[in-house]
């Protein structure tokens, strides 16, 4: 059974419908990716999963429980954690305070020392800059902090929206490497990516979203060979 499942979700903003029956399932311990062009509805899917937008229809299930009506903070408390698009750091706070904020859920508090060690090991730069205000760091460092803050929440499912956006390719590679490290520790993850090639290269399974619907799904390795995916998303 899937650990996190989105069943036939429709949602949008005001009168504008963005999602037209999206269904996605995340298997326990796997790295899944959700890819698609700009405007396909990836971020809307994430916002709906977290409850920042109420789904018009359909449901969200976590560990066999219907969590569709829960607010974002209640979901974070359960271990469903989103690293949002655009980092959304606490720019006025120090790096360390951002990490402490990540560990707000009750279930994360007793794991603070262990998780802090983990994120400082993954991103030594953050340790060097721990007293610096988050808003004054470079884009790459801010993205590291956003991921690190998500890890501090001691997630059961970690979803990362647009990890690679606006970052230099070398940095992106570094960040993807650190995700593999987390996967090896058994964390269930979802990558929401415009960078289809990179996402398919690191993930186990992938969903291709187009016009608010899942157009294709399958093991990432197979999708990378798919003719349609190659021509529409990889430019091959």
């Amino acid at each position, binding site marked *: 059974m899937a650990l996190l499942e989105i069943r036939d979700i429709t949602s949008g903003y005001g009168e504008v419908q963005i999602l037209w029956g999206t269904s996605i399932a995340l298997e326990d311990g796997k790295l899944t990716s959700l890819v698609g062009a700009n405007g396909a509805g990836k971020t809307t899917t994430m916002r709906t999963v977290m409850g*920042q937008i109420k789904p018009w229809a359909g449901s969200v299930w976590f560990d066999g429980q219907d969590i569709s009506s829960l*607010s*974002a*903070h209640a979901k*974070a408390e359960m271990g469903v954690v989103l690293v949002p698009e655009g980092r*959304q750091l606490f*720019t006025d*706070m120090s790096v360390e305070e951002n990490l402490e*904020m990540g560990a707000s859920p009750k279930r994360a508090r007793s794991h603070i020392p262990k998780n802090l060690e983990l994120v400082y090991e993954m991103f030594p730069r953050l340790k060097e800059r721990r007293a610096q205000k988050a808003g004054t760091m470079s884009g790459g460092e801010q993205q590291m902090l956003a991921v690190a803050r998500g890890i501090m*929440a001691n997630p059961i499912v970690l979803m990362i929206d647009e990890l690679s956006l606006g970052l230099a390719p070398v940095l992106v590679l570094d960040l993807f490497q650190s995700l593999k490290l987390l996967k090896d520790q058994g964390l269930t993850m979802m990558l929401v990516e415009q960078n289809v090639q990179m996402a398919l290269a690191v993930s186990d399974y992938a969903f291709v979203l187009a016009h608010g619907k899942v157009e294709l799904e399958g093991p990432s390795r197979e999708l990378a060979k798919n003719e349609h995916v190659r021509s529409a998303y990889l430019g091959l």
Partner: protein
Amino acid sequence: MQISFDLIIASLIDGLLLGFVYGIAAMGLTLIWGVMNVINLAHGPIIALGMFSLYFIFDLFGLNPYVALLLVAILGLLLGVLIYFVAVHRVIDAPHLSTLLATFSINMIIIGLGTAAFSASPRNVDFSLGSLSLGPVTLLGTRLVAAVLAVAVTGGLYLFLYRTRPGRYIRAVANNRDAAELMGVPSAQILALSFGLGTMLAAIAGGLIATFFPFTILAGGVYELKSFVIGVLGGLGNPVGALLGGLILGMLEGIIPAFMPTTWVPVLEFLLFVLILLVRPQGLFGARK
């Protein structure tokens, strides 16, 4: 008119002491603005309720006014949380006009009920701590205690915001509400707490002012206006700026009547308000955004 140096010093210090209390009032207004971008137009009536609460606790139960102030603070906090959930929460994401109207209706409700319950005749907290004479300067005991309490309240607020978990949550929600929510922070409760702290500061200011001057249910209005001036002076959303702004305004009020009729005080205060908005809209102590 002969202006004596002693008189100026005495007025300045008198105004300065009053300024500490103005600072507390303004801090309440600016805290709410800083956390949730809501201008609380019920600020004045809540200051007035602080005055009346202190008066009744003192008068009916004979408690020392400073013990009563503790109860006034708690009542102010609870009232703010109630106002938040009844009137503000449903319009928190709506345009500013909606939150202005919501808090203005709370203003009208409190004034209406207050006038019916307490009438319009002035009340007075019959309490004195004597005075302290230092050369030409005579300091009223109640003013001195109020200033000391104002500093303690400011310090307490800072410790709360920077040293406790709820305080950190308030700063996080002020900085980025969506992100705080994603990190497991129940943002509605934190907003309610922030609103409650803002009204608590207003009620404390009211309670302290009640130990200086007689008052009616309408007495809070003038302090609400002062709070706006101070908030802009110190930089909206900046608690220490509010205290410093309060001190500046208090000193101006002390010193202006030495040179011209008292009726000029509000004229000059609002001239200052407009000037600050034109020249340095982020306030004297606010960071440039």
